[in-house]
């Protein structure tokens, strides 16, 4: 595969791209399952069997009901009279159920038993029922609380998509309680306040920020307890104790602080229980105390993963009558954490939350009548059936319930098998039929205990199957999907790398042919190339560490500055001075001087960029330039903004008039650039000083005018420029200043529009970059205007450096340098790997009405300003490189030429990105049980995906522009030549 034709090359590239896209989407959908949640909240339709359309219509009327009317309506419909009036939900953060209930049917250790005397006495006397409630990973507080109150297991993406609000918007228990007019009080972890803003009538939130504090956090909760217990104006009291989790984090499970902490919790339980008994006696209503923990902890006190120690959380119902002894075999008293939601909903007679996947804990209904127990199971089954129905469109068991009840007893005992739809449907029908026949028999007075038991068993079978299937849909990570995604990505990565090595070998041989007379070219690996590859390795390794991901900006900066220093070293090397005339030596000296100056400028601007935003997660409090400027007030910032705008415009005009042939065309482009620049400056002057005005109509209009000007200007330039570019034929060529045009034969100059292509690429690239920068000046935060200017300057300086490079210098090295520069700039603009740094405010500039799509696009433009700028600069880069020698080889044709010109600027970014993407995918897969998988690794993965999209767009723009320009120029040249021949 030494030489490959252009079509073949393109096909390979496109194939690799498609592989990558397929792999990425397979992986993303496998790793971040989108939970098909039902919207809305359960109403009274949940007390009717699913499938009856007549009932659904009636739900409209309950809108007008007052909370009390709704409450009595629910009580009438549910058929289960609530046993309790009030609920105390006591959450002990991080308490493993093992501490209270023991493990494998054995009671807990002696010291733990002694630490909780009152709770143990309640358990042994049958006043309380305890369960091991298995939590789903990630075992971190907020998702677990959500699971407990909504019964649903959330996916990651719905966390990511709701990054601006943490409030729980899905149907949940607390929302249901609120609808029936409950008053709620919350004491403890302020996560509850984030989840349910404005829901509690009284609250005292404590922060879990100071992990070292194990005493004060809990005292802050308990100090209100006496007061709250004596009041009767609440229905739900949430207590969330953080101290035990903090004890675990400090000293692990067997910390010396653990015993006293457990004793303290036991005291709280005792205090609440005694007061509830008292309250019952005083006729303040019956109170149920539910003690739960959100997750367990490992031996060393950490949590987040999915080991037994971490997922083993507690669910303890104090106040329910219980006939069974409490150290049951693990099969009997282990439930799921999500089961708490439907249980509480049924106990209090509210509809089960819509997305619940839990199953009612049957032991909690032991004291109810047979009728009520079956009814609870029936309601739970209906709710799960509805959820299954929403996810399996093929599920339809007919409108059985509307047919009224008459059991087809024959079908009631069949074995269920087949597809999941059939199985679930059959199980559900079995249970419903048995229940109906039991009711029928009961009316006749001929019911038997066996019928009852088989009905219960049938319901449980359905519930278990449906619940397992539903929760597997959410938490199951389909290995095959992951594996195929990773394999596809790896394949595409290998194709890219293969293409790059292939083309660089080809370029090298071409070079050797070209430079054979000078005999000075040899294929050696220089230090910079080794370092560029080393950087990839460093990045891949750093991805495995969560703190390196948090502080990624340091890596990029360190690496890019080291690279500049290496280039500086190389530039100093250059005058070898052994061969050649004095003139050549002088030219070489001049070249190295310019290069040294360029690199020094790059180094200084890189340092300023690094100092602009502190960035990251851990060191954000340290001083930086942006904080210092912000202290100066809005006038200082506006001054900085205007200065950088003016500097940007002068730099742009300078670069424009550096352009060799000063035609009218350049003047027109310059004029357009000036106009749009002044429009942006006007916008800054008028409207930037406070954010409130940005919603103002005139500001919006001006922003829209700027969008239109920039858009029309850019597109117009790109389309018109190749047509208007003056074409020089024959004699004009030799006059034109090209670096090594002497060696290019006249024939080739004649055949290919090399000079014109370079000129138009230069102009188009410049227009792209300048327009992008002006757009950023408008959209970015005011403080970021200077970094944008510095980035533009860096890129232009880099172009200068590259143009002075020797032609045999490795092109891929320069493109990789540009790519790295773009990534360093990305972080210099204040971005990080957390979703919190996305600038949401800028995404609404110039939008007259709210549109998710448009503001999403603006957000993308703001976030990926720097990588996109670098990719757009590739158009200019193509013009800066001296490609004329490429055309000297024998097999010169259009395809070969395009390939040589476009291959590196397009393939190197794609290749580098594919390496990082593939590596990070594998890292994410390995880290899927890590404590920080949801807080650090997954957001970073979203950024990596977005970078990939950014690179696709950028590379597409570059390739399309170049191909279009080339086609037009070639067409015009052919035309002109044929006309010329005709005239002659």
């Amino acid at each position, binding site marked *: 595969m030494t030489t490959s034709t252009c079509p073949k090359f393109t096909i390979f590239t496109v194939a690799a791209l498609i592989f990558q896209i397929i792999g990425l989407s397979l992986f993303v959908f496998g790793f971040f399952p989108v939970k098909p949640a039902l919207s809305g909240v359960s109403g009274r339709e949940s007390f009717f069997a699913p499938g009856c359309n007549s009932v659904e219509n009636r739900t409209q009327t309950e809108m007008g009901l007052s909370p009390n009317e709704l409450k009595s309506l629910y009580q009438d419909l549910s058929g289960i009279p609530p046993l309790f009036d009030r609920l105390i939900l006591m959450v002990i953060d991080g308490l493993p159920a093992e501490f209270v209930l023991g493990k494998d049917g054995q009671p807990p250790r002696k010291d733990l038993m002694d630490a909780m005397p009152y709770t143990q006495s309640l358990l042994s006397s049958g006043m309380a029922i305890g369960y091991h409630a298995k939590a789903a990973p990630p075992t971190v507080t907020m998702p677990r609380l959500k699971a407990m109150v909504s019964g649903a297991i959330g996916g990651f993406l719905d966390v990511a998509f709701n990054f601006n609000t943490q409030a729980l918007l899905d149907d949940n228990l607390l929302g249901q309680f609120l609808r029936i007019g409950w008053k709620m009080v919350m004491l403890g972890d302020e996560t509850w306040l984030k989840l349910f803003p404005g829901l509690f009538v009284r609250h005292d939130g404590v922060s879990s920020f100071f992990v070292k504090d194990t005493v004060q956090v809990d005292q802050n909760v308990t100090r209100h307890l006496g007061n709250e217990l004596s009041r009767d104006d609440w229905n739900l009291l949430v207590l969330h104790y953080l101290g035990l989790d903090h004890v675990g984090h400090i000293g692990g499970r067997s910390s010396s602080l653990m015993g006293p902490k457990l004793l303290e919790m036991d005291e709280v339980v005792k205090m609440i229980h005694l007061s509830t008994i008292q309250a019952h006696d005083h006729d303040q209503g019956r109170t149920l105390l539910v003690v739960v923990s959100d997750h367990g902890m490992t031996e060393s006190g950490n949590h987040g993963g999915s080991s037994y120690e971490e997922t083993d959380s507690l669910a303890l119902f104090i106040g329910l009558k219980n006939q069974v002894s409490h150290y049951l075999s693990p099969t009997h008293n282990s439930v799921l954490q999500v089961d708490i939601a439907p249980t509480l909903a049924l106990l209090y007679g509210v509809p089960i939350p819509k997305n619940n996947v839990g199953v009612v804990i049957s032991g909690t209904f032991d004291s109810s009548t047979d009728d009520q127990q079956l009814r609870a199971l029936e309601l739970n089954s209906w709710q799960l059936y509805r959820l299954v129905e929403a996810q399996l469109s093929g599920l339809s068991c007919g409108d059985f319930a509307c047919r009224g009840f008459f059991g087809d007893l024959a079908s009631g005992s069949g074995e269920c098998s087949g597809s999941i739809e059939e199985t679930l449907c059959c199980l559900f029908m079995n249970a419903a039929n048995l229940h109906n026949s039991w009711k029928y028999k009961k009316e006749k007075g001929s019911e038997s205990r066996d019928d009852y038991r088989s009905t219960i068993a049938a319901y449980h079978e359905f519930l278990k199957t449906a619940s397992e299937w539903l929760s597997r849909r959410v938490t199951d990570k389909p290995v095959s999907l992951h594996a195929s995604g990773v394999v596809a990505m790896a394949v595409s990565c290998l194709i890219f790398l293969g293409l790059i090595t292939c083309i660089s070998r080809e370029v090298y041989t071409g070079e050797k042919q070209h430079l054979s007379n000078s005999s000075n070219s*040899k294929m050696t690996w220089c230090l910079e190339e080794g370092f560029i590859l080393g950087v990839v390795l460093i990045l891949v390794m750093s991805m495995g*560490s969560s*703190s*390196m991901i*948090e*502080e990624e900006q*340091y*890596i990029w*900066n*360190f690496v890019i*500055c*080291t690279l*500049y*220093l290496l280039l500086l*070293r*190389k530039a*100093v*090397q250059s005058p070898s001075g052994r061969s050649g005339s004095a003139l050549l030596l002088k030219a070489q000296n001049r070249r190295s001087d310019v290069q040294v100056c360029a690199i020094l400028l790059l*180094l*200084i601007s*890189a*340092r300023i960029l*690094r*100092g602009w935003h502190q960035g*990251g*997660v*851990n*060191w954000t409090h*340290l*001083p930086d330039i942006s904080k210092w400027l912000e202290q100066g007030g809005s006038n200082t910032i506006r001054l900085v903004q205007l200065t950088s705008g003016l500097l940007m415009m002068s730099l742009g005009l300078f670069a424009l008039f550096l352009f060799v042939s000063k035609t009218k065309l350049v003047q027109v482009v310059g004029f357009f650039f000036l106009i749009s620049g002044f429009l942006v400056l006007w916008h800054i002057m008028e409207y930037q000083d406070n954010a409130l005005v940005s919603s103002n109509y005139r500001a919006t209009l001006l922003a829209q005018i700027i969008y239109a000007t920039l858009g029309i200007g850019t597109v117009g330039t790109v389309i018109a420029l190749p047509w208007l570019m003056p074409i020089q034929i024959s004699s004009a060529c030799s006059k034109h200043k090209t670096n090594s045009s002497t060696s290019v034969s006249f024939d080739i100059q004649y055949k290919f529009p090399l000079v014109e292509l370079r000129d138009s690429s230069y102009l188009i690239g410049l227009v792209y970059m300048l327009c992008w920068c002006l757009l950023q000046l408008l959209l970015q935060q005011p403080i970021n205007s200077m970094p944008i200017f510095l980035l533009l300057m860096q890129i232009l300086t880099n172009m200068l450096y590259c143009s002075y490079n020797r032609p045999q210098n490795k092109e891929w090295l320069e493109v990789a340098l540009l790519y790295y520069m773009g990534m360093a700039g990305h972080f210099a603009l204040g971005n990080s790997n957390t979703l919190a740094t996305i600038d949401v405010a800028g995404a609404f500039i110039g939008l007259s009405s709210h549109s998710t799509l448009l503001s999403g696009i603006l957000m993308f433009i703001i976030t990926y300003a720097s990588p996109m700028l670098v990719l757009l600069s590739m158009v200019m880069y193509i013009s800066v490189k001296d490609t004329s020698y490429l055309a000297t080889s024998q097999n010169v044709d259009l395809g070969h030429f395009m390939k040589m010109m476009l291959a590196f600027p397009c393939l190197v970014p794609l290749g580098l990105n594919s390496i990082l993407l593939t590596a990070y995918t594998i890292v994410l897969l390995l880290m899927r049980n890590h404590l920080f998988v949801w807080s650090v690794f997954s957001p970073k993965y979203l950024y990596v995906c977005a970078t990939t999209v950014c690179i696709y767009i950028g590379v597409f723009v570059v390739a399309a522009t170049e191909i279009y320009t080339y086609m037009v120029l070639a067409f015009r040249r052919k035309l002109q030549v044929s006309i010329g021949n005709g005239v002659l």
Partner: protein
Amino acid sequence: MQEEKKKNKKKSYIAKASTAENSSRSVSALQAFFVHLICGLGLAIALWVAHNFYAINLVSDPSRTLRLIWIVQSPIVTLLYSWFRLDPERCSYLKAVGRGMLALPAGALVNALGAIVLGAPVGIEYLPKTINWSVLMSLCTFVPAASVFGSSWSHWQRMFAHTKPNEPLEYMICIPAHGAVIGAWLGAWPMPLDWERPWQEWPVCVTYGAMTGYLVAMVVSLGFVVVHGRRQNLKRD
């Protein structure tokens, strides 16, 4: 073909070097060993003095410790390397010492700029640390070269831009200097991590890295000197 070219190049270098050798003192392996040993001991003594007499170390008081180290180390390095100056007939010992002393602040400036460019914090409270660190780095990198080569640009270029030393003296200058720089570069990696250790502060771990790199590189350079001496002996035979 390529190898031949390389050989040719090497030969030309060796020819050049031999002319240089004539004008400088030749360095035996034993001399090289003692020079490196004394430099290394200088570092160790400075650290020991700081620990036992002033009760400070790099972590507790980086600025003063670094100052102590470079005050102890600078006469050692300057006096030792000046002995091996190029062209000893025309250039007196004192002149060599003087240019070594001049190179100390100049090299410190270059090192400080390099560190700041690579991300060393800028600020009044960091200034003494940066200055003391860069003087120490200058002692490891610039001062020996300045004492030996003076202002001979071609030597400097070959040492630091091309990294092509080819005689014992050049090994002794070039390799420890590169070792110190690479060590310092590697030493900066733990700085952004959130381990909350006091040694992650600038310039503590960078100094540790630089000193480790310097010591390792001295051993390597000694190895090169010994190998070079053997090869010369073989050739003579």
